[in-house]
C-alpha cells in the first residue's frame, strides 16, 4: 500500500498552503487531518471522525495486508483482506467526502479491477507455459535474514488478484453510488439557484 500512501502525501503536500489564513507559529498544524478540503459524505463535519480516520486508516490497510498474507494458515485471505482494505477507503470517504476518496486512491477502481484480473489470469495461466495444467500451484520455503523461514506459494499471487478485485469492486460501487450521487446532488444545488436567477 505504499502507492496509496504516496498519493496521499502528494495530495497533502499539494494543498497544505492553500487554505486561507493559517495560524502562525509552532502550534499551527503542518498538515490537515485529511488531505483535501473536507466535506464529509453525510451530515456536518465531525472532527472526531476525521481524527479517527486519520489514525486508523494506515492500521486498517496494514491489517488487511496481514490478513491477505496469513490467509493460508489463519482466517483471512484475499476476500477478507480486500474487504478490510476497502473498508479503509470507505471510512475515508465517509469522513472526508468524495474528494478525499479521490485523493487517497492509488489508482482508479477500474484500474484495480483490471490489475486484479491480470494478476489472477497470469497466475492461472502461467503453469501452461511450463506444460502444466491451468491453475496448478507450487510453493517453496526459504530462509530470509530477519524473517526466518518464509513460505511462498503461488496461490498467494492468485489471492492478491482476488484482493485487488474485491477492493476494486467496493471502490467502484462507492464511487458510483456514493461519490457520483453526491457530486450530482451538488451539481443540482449549484445549478438550481443559477437557473432561477436567470429567469
Amino acid at each position, binding site marked *: 500500500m505504499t502507492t496509496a500512501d504516496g498519493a496521499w502525501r502528494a495530495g497533502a503536500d499539494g494543498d497544505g498552503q492553500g487554505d486561507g489564513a493559517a495560524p502562525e507559529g509552532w502550534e499551527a498544524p503542518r498538515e490537515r487531518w485529511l488531505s483535501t478540503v473536507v466535506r464529509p459524505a453525510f451530515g456536518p463535519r465531525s472532527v472526531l471522525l476525521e481524527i479517527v480516520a486519520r489514525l486508523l486508516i494506515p492500521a486498517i490497510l496494514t491489517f488487511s495486508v496481514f490478513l491477505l498474507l496469513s490467509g493460508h*494458515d489463519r*482466517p483471512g*485471505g484475499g476476500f477478507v483482506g480486500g474487504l478490510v482494505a476497502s473498508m479503509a477507503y470507505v471510512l475515508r470517504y465517509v469522513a472526508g467526502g*468524495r474528494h478525499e476518496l*479521490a*485523493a487517497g486512491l492509488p489508482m482508479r477502481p477500474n484500474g484495480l479491477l483490471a490489475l486484479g*484480473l491480470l494478476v489472477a489470469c497470469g497466475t492461472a495461466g502461467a503453469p501452461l507455459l511450463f506444460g502444466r495444467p491451468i491453475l496448478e500451484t507450487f510453493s517453496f520455503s526459504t530462509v530470509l535474514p530477519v524473517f526466518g523461514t518464509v513460505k511462498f506459494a503461488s496461490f498467494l499471487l492468485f489471492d492478491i488478484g482476488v484482493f485487488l478485485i474485491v477492493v476494486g469492486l467496493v471502490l467502484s460501487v*462507492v464511487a458510483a453510488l456514493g*461519490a457520483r450521487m453526491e457530486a450530482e446532488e451538488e451539481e443540482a444545488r449549484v445549478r438550481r439557484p443559477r437557473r432561477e436567477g436567470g429567469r
Partner: protein
Amino acid sequence: MLIFALVLHAAFAVLLPPLVRVLGARVFFVASLPPALAVLWALSQAPRIVSGRPISASVAWVPALDISLDFRVDALALAMVVLVSGIGAAIFCYSVGYFHADERGIGRLASVMVLFSGAMLGVVTTDNLFALYVFWELTSVTSFLLIGHDDRKEQARRAALQALVTTVGTGLFMLVGFILLGGIGGTFRISELVADPPTDSPWLPVALVLILVGAFAKSAQAPLHFWLPAAMVAPTPISAYLHAATMVKGGVYLVARLAPGFADVDPWRALVLTVGLATMLVGGWRALRQDDLKLLLAYGTVSQLGFLIVLGGTGTQVAAAAMIGTLLAHGFFKSTLFLTVGVIDHQTGTRSIAALTGIGRRMPVLAGAGALAAASMAGLPPLIGFVGKEAALEAFLPGHVPAPSPAAAGVMLAGLVVGSILTFAYSARFVWGAFADKETVSERRFQSPSWAFVTAPVLLSAAGLLLGVAPQAADAVAQSYAAPLPVGDKPYHLALWHGFGPTLGLTALVIAAGALLFAARRTVEQAQKALARWPEAELGYHLFVHAIYAAALSVTRRLQSGSLSVYLGVILATMLALPGVRLVAALVNGDLRLPFGSEEFRIWDSPLEGVVAVVLIVATIAVAREHRRFPALIMLGALGFGVAGLFVLHGAPDLALTLILVETLTMIILVFVLRRLPSTFNVRPNGWTKRFTVLLCSAAGTFIAVTLWLMTDARTATPISGGFAERAEEVGGRNLVNVILVDFRALDTFGEIVVLATAAVAVASLVLLNRRSRVMEQNGAETPEENGAETEDAKEGTAGPRAGIGTKEILGNDLRPDGAHQPNEGGE
C-alpha cells in the same frame, strides 16, 4: 467421389454470389457444373450399380452418438441422382436465359439452388436416418428461401412460410419416427434396416406412420397438398426443379426406399394406397379447372405424386418397376412442361389459358417438345410415360399380383384408371391451352425465344422419348431395385409392347375416355362450377395456424400480465404444486418421516445457538414487516450479524469474518442509496392479496426448510472433502477454506472474481449512464464554457489517479460560495 461432389455443391454455393458481378446471369452455367459432374459420375458407375453392387462411402460425423455420414448409391438412388443432378444441370443452363442479369438477388438465388441440389443429392444417397433427416430439412429450408425469392411480394412470403411450416413441421414427426425405427431396429443405417426389418415391436407401426406423415407432406399428398400449388409463386425454373422434378419426390423416394422392408407391416399399405389414390384423383380433378398453366401443372404434379406414392409403397415387383419407370418419366416430362410454360411466360408475359393463342404456330420447336412431354404424361406410346403406366396397371390386376388382396387391387385398378383418364384430359387441356389457336382470343405480340432458351426443354423432352423407345435402360434400373420384392405370376419387364392383354385394353379405355373428357371440357367446367366448392385443404392449414396464434395469444394474455411479482408467484406455486405436493403425500403416506422424536432430534446444539436463532427469526420477521426504510435496514443488519454469529458457533471463522465485513459494507452502501429515497416504502399491499402472498411464501419457505431437514437427516455419504487436510499440508496451507478457494477449487474463485469485476463495471455504468444522458441533454441548453467545467468536474468525480494534480481544481470548485454545506434532502 460422391462426398467430393457434395462438398463441391457447398463450395459452389459459397463461391457463386461474388461471381455474379462478373458473369451476370451466366453464373448459372457455373452453377450447373457440380450437378453435371455428379450425374456424369453416377452414369459412369451405372453398370456396376445396376448389376447389384451399390457404391458406399462413409465419413464419421458424431462418433460419440454413432452417427456417421454413410452414403450408398443403389439402383433407386441412381434413378434419383439422374433426376436430381441431370435435370438440375439442364435447369441451371435454362436459368441463364430465364433470368435477366439485373434480376434482384440473382447471386443468392444461384447459391441457394446449388445448395438445394447438393442437399437433395444427399437425401437420395445417404444411408443414415439422421443424415437423411438433416439433408431433408436442408431441402425444406432451401425450398423456403427459393419460394420466397421475391421477398417483396407478400404472397411469396406467405407461400414460402406455408411450405416451410408444412414440410418442416411434419418433418419433426418423421424424425421421431426415425428415432423409434432406429431404436427398434438397433441401427440407423437404412440399408441394414430394410434388409433385415424388425417385425415384432408394437412401436413399429407408430414409427412407420410418423415417417409416412413426413413423407406425405413432402410429396404434397392430400390433405397436405395445398402448399405445392401455393409454392408456384416461385420463379419457373425453381418450380420446375424443386416442385416438380426433385424435392417433392423426396417423399416418394423415402416410401420407395422403405417399402421393400416394411410394406407388409400394417397399416403401411392401406395408408399408402388410400392417401396416394385420393391424392391422384383430387389433383387430377383440380387440374382440370385451372386457367393458369403453371397451376394446372402443379395440380398435375400433385396427382402424379399420389400415383407415385401408390406405386412406390405397394411393395411388389411390378409396382416397383412401374414406380421407377413413372419416376423417370415424370421427372422428365414435368420439368419439360414447366420449362415450356416458363418460356411462354417469359416471352408473352402471361400463362393464362384464356389469354394465349397461336403459340404453337409461333414457337413450333417449343410446342413440339411440350406436346411430346404432355403425351408422355398422358401415357401415349412410344414414350416412357406409357411404359410406366402400362406397368402400373399391370401391378394391380386382381389375381395376378401378390399384394394387395384381389378386392383391394380391383378398387385400386379402377381408381388408377379414373386417375389416368383425368391425367389424359388435363394433359390434352394443357396442350390445347398452351399452344392451340383460339379464335376468341386476340394474339399477343412477342419475340421468339432464343435457341439456347429452348434447348433445355427440348433435351429433357427428348430424354423422355429416348427412354420410351429404348426402355431397357430404365428396365435395368427397375429390375435391380425390384429384385428383392415379391413377384407375381411371372417376372415383369418395362417394355413398350407386352402383347394383347387386359392392360392394353385399359390403356385404350383411358385414351378414349380421356379424349372424350377433353372434348366435353365445357360441360366438365360447368359441372365443376355447379358442384358445391369442396372445402379447400388450405383452409385446414389456415385454421391450424390461426388456432395456434389464438392459443398462444390467450396463454400469453393470461400468463404475461407484466407484473414481476405474479411471475415469481407462479414459480413459487409451481414449486409447491409439484415437489411440494409430492413431499406432503410422502409424509402422509409414511414413506418419509420427519425426525421428530428420534434420537437425532434436538431443539438446538447449544443454548447460544438458540439465542442466535431467535434473534435471526425476530430480525427476519421485522425486515419483512417494516415499512420504514431505515428501521428495515437496521433489522437487515441485525439479521446479517446474527447469521455471522451462527457461523462463529458452527466453526466457520472465515465466513463470520467475511460476512461481518460484507454486512458492514452493504449497510453503508444501502445508506448511500436509501438516504435519497422516501422514508417509507410507497406501496403497501393489503387485504387478500397480502394474505395470499404471505401464505404462499410461508408455504414455500417451510417446504424448503423441511426438505433441507429431511435431506441432511438422510445423508449417508461421507463428505468429499475427506482428503483435503492432507493435501492442504502438501501445498503448505493450514486454513482449509482458503486453500480450497485459491487452490483446489480455484477455477470457481476465478469465475467469481470475473463476476465481481463485471458487477463493478455494471454498477459504475448504470450510474454513469444517467449522468451521461443528462450531460447530453444540457449540451443543447447551456453555454459551452459551463459544459466544459461540468465535464471537467465529471472526471474528477470518478476519483482518479490525477488526484494530486487535480486538487486545486477541486479546491476551486469546492470553494464556490453556493457550494456551502447544506443538509441532504431526502430526494429531489
